[in-house]
């Protein structure tokens, strides 16, 4: 797949849950792909909220965000088609196998060869051997690998990973790292993490402090 010039930016971005609790506050940044950006900060500083806003799942309370592909801004409702998100809240259908979950996602996303795309994504994260097992039988680490496979399924130019190495063993971490490097060679990867090993993958860093008053470092 040919590389797409991808960029993300935020201006005065604020998100509140209800009237009091603030997810992110007055956040301004701009990043261009390719490459990896580590989004760091203490618990509750808004790392996950920021990724959900960029994925188009949350509408910010104030300010704005933009995702651009080859210089053209992607409408918020279409971001999910060009972004891949893996977060701890992402759950799959227990009664379906890992492969069936991904084939379903590929079909719903309109990929031309759903089974092949699912197989390639599972192979990439080292889950091909257990692809036909039901998700109910997966361990936490296997579910995390499936999340990563899902995020990379449609080879998106923008990949948003929230604590990608959580629950992973050494082999899983190596697979995740290889997948991040591969995705970063084609587009922009934002990794929300406080894990030093994951931070080392990134050449740029967005540090959210307390209530998310971060700027690109």
């Amino acid at each position, binding site marked *: *797949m040919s590389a797409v010039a991808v960029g993300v930016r935020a201006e005065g971005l604020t998100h509140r849950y209800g009237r009091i609790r603030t997810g992110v506050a007055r956040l301004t940044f701009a990043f261009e792909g390719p490459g990896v950006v580590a989004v760091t900060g203490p618990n509750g500083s808004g790392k996950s909220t920021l990724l*959900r806003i960029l*994925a188009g*799942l*949350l*509408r910010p309370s104030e300010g704005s965000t933009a995702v651009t592909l080859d210089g053209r801004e992607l409408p918020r*409702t*279409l971001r*999910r*088609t*060009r972004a891949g*998100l893996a*977060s701890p*809240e*992402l*759950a*799959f*259908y*227990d*009664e*379906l196998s890992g492969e*069936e*979950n991904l084939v*379903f*996602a590929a*079909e*719903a*996303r*309109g*990929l*031309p060869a759903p089974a092949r795309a699912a197989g390639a994504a599972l192979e990439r994260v080292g889950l091909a051997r257990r692809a036909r097992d039901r998700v109910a039988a997966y361990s936490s680490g296997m579910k995390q690998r499936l999340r990563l496979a*899902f995020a990379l399924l*449609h080879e998106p130019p923008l990949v948003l990973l929230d604590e990608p190495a959580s629950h992973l063993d050494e082999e899983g971490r190596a697979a995740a790292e290889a997948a991040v490097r591969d995705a970063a060679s084609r587009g922009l990867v934002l990794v929300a993490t406080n894990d030093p090993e994951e931070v080392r993958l990134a050449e740029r860093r967005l540090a959210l402090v307390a209530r998310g008053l971060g700027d690109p470092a």
Partner: protein
Amino acid sequence: MPSDGSRSWPAVWAILRKECRSEWRTRYGLNAALLFAVASLTAVTFAAGRLPDRPDLLAALLWIVLLFAALSSMSHAFVRETEAHTLLFLRLVASPTQIALGKLGFNLLFLLVVEAVTVPLFLLLTGAPPLRWAAFGAVLGLGTLALAASSTLVGAVIAQSRNRGALFAAVSLPLLLPVLASGVAGTRAQWDGLPVAADARLLGSYAVALFAVSLLLYDHLWEE
């Protein structure tokens, strides 16, 4: 390269197939719906015997059985997604409208399966008078469409709410009363030899109106 979102049908079709596969594997709703239908029909038959000369009671009984057999399962199509935390997965692969259309298709199919078992059993056990098939089919078909549209809308509205139980009753009742009233009136009319066109029109219009309102609402229902 994924679809740009303008081609909805592959997503709707994928969701419909996924719903069917999940239901087949878990039997989450079908067993409960069929159990309710068979148990309630058997209980009524034991208590009241056969009722060939009471089309008024038969019409009400048929729609009550269909309504409750279907509703308890269908409105949970969205609630299951919330409780299993799979709604995020769905939202990442399809738009809210695509999700709702897929669920509507499944609810329609689910109702048809429930009816395929319930209606013949009902006619057999209650000793119902002979049907005017065209009139009965029109009322049942359009009623099914209205029932599926309303239960899908109710399910989508209550799925994200914390107090789903209370909201379910409050939202369902006003939406379902017109379906129940017209379904009962139309079914009775076909047994009484009266025209059913007015009831069928009402059911059809109601289904179309609910569908149109749903299409306008779905994109905003899960906005966070």
